């Protein structure tokens, strides 16, 4: 009468009985590394890491060899190297984040988002003044640069991939060449042409223009790769239904590529959000809030960081760290928003 109840399980997962050699191996690796560092002249974190890697290779290879064969041993050695490579990527990033958060959290309060530096001198305590002017400047600059470079970048990539016009390879060449332009050159270009040549003065729009020059190639190249991934079947299906090329692109290709195109914008923002050099030449710098992006000197977070760091007194250096921290939070928020709005629909494709 006993009813057998079927429970969903994952039989492909390793069972505890089968992982204990691995756990023992890991323990052995860690302990032996500690021991080796203690008795040999190898010292410090570097010595320990190297010993750890070597010991991990040796133990995992010998365990696999004993349990199975030479192929399994080779497999585990390459697995260890893959993990080590991943660690080489993650550890610097994590320590960077840790440094920024631990240094920047000092003096972080809601108040910094309500005040600017117009009435505060550089060496006054962190409880006075704020970086609202820099936050507003960065928001303006990133938004303006995105508004300029997204359509230009997307249209350039559409020209290369969809229109495949006569100059497609030329355009691709220029986009690639542009992505190698040093950021200071972009700033100098705006400075020389827009400001000196055409007689405009420092403002947010000039800064955004300089950043757009840097952002366009990133957006265009990423969008190009994304569009190339859309299967040709979809284009043919749209055209075979009697659509023009323009409507096929607008209603089928772009929606199908949506999440990838959002990634293109994100990569573009990531490319320019922290740029400082072009802003030094175009923003002019300010300690007060400037709500007009088309007139008057302004600030931005990278500019704020650079300025406070060069002032050199302890409070200013604290403020520089605070600026880095806030910039990081803002970039993170841009990314999350973009990801949220760019989620792939009909995802199992």
């Amino acid at each position, binding site marked *: 009468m006993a009813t057998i109840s079927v429970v969903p399980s994952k039989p492909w997962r390793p069972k505890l009985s089968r992982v204990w050699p691995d756990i023992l191996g890991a323990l052995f690796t860690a302990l032996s590394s500690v021991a080796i560092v203690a008795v040999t002249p190898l010292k410090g974190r570097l010595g320990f890491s190297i010993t750890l890697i070597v010991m991990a290779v040796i133990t995992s290879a010998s365990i696999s060899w004993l349990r199975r064969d030479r192929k399994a041993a080779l497999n585990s050695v390459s697995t260890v190297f893959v993990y080590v490579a991943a660690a080489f990527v993650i550890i610097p990033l994590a320590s960077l984040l840790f440094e920024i958060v631990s240094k920047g959290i000092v003096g972080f309060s809601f108040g910094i988002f309500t005040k600017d530096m117009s009435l505060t001198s550089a060496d006054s305590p962190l409880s006075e003044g704020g970086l609202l002017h820099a936050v507003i400047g960065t928001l303006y600059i990133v938004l303006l640069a995105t508004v300029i470079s997204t359509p230009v970048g997307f249209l350039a990539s559409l020209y290369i991939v969809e229109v495949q016009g006569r100059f497609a390879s030329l355009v691709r060449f220029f986009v690639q060449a542009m992505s190698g332009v040093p950021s200071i050159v972009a700033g100098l270009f705006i400075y020389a042409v827009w400001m000196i040549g055409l007689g405009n003065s420092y403002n947010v729009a000039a800064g955004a223009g300089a950043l757009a020059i840097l952002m366009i190639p990133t957006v265009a190249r990423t969008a190009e790769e994304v569009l190339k991934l859309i299967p040709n*079947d*979809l284009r043919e*299906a*749209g055209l*075979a*239904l*009697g659509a023009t090329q323009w*409507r*096929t692109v607008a209603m089928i290709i772009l929606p199908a590529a949506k999440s990838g195109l959002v990634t293109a914008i994100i990569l573009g923002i990531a490319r320019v959000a922290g740029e400082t050099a072009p802003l030094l030449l175009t923003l002019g710098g300010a300690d007060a809030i400037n709500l007009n992006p088309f007139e008057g000197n302004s600030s931005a977070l990278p500019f704020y960081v650079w300025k406070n760091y060069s002032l050199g007194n302890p409070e200013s250096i604290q403020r520089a760290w605070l600026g880095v921290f806030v910039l990081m939070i803002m970039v993170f928020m841009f990314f999350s928003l973009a990801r949220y709005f760019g989620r792939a629909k*009909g995802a199992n494709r």
Partner: protein
Amino acid sequence: MINEENREMRDSMSKIETTSAASSGADIRKEVKPSSLASVAASHESKSKSREIRDGVGLEARGIHAWFGKKLVLEDISLDFAPGTVTALIGPSGCGKSTFIRILNRMHEFIPTAALAGDVLLGGKDIYGSGVDVTKIRLKIGMVFQKPNPFPSMTIRENVLSGLRLAQIKLSNEDELLESCLLRAGLWDEVKDRLNEYGGALSGGQQQRLCIARSLAVNPKVLLMDEPCSALDPGSTLRIEETIRELSESISIVIVTHNMQQAARVSDYTGFFLSDGGPGKLIEVGSTSEIFSTPKDQRTLDYVTGRFG
């Protein structure tokens, strides 16, 4: 105990039965007796004879040659597709059937290396003529592709109605159209409760039927189908074949198929393509019952009886 044994016996017996049935089925397909396919075709013909052809638009291919780069893949194909008829194109893989039907709705020109000679006339007018609006042509000559290709960013409902949106056609009774298209494609019962799910969430065969529904929604005058049933189960295949028969009362249909039974079941005319290493040629075209019973060319007989290809 005895009961148990009995059931086992019965089970194994039914198994034997099914296997023998299956193997005899395979036999039929392997050494197709011309008479059997011919009789299928003949019975279809007698049924379709009684049908009255409504005013449709015919399609005519004249002296079609096609190249990819320097390579000639089709040589001098001339074929008439009368209104209200179903024409099956058969032939071994790589003989140019897909290339040919892509020429019929101007999809051939999307391959950069492609070239073409000859005329295609829709209702007497050359679709490759200058000043022809190619999007209107493709609206009138619909196409179902070999591989299912639903639009991933659209729901099932949006997929079916996508042709209207793409060609900017306004309709008041979209829901009726949606239901009738899905019914005719044999998909309605499976998706009527999930019309707002994405097209990519369907199985391969369901996706293909969705594509068929999509091409029906714009009400084409000619429908080109490139092996539409190659990913479908027998049930859906039968449903599609019924749809083809219903549609053929008002439009002309060209269907590429590797399934001789299917060609015999649904088509009024059959064209046999063959390439002997060189370009593909139209070896023979005639009424389906003729092709499957008394073809004029020995190679056609060999192919439809399964002796090669």
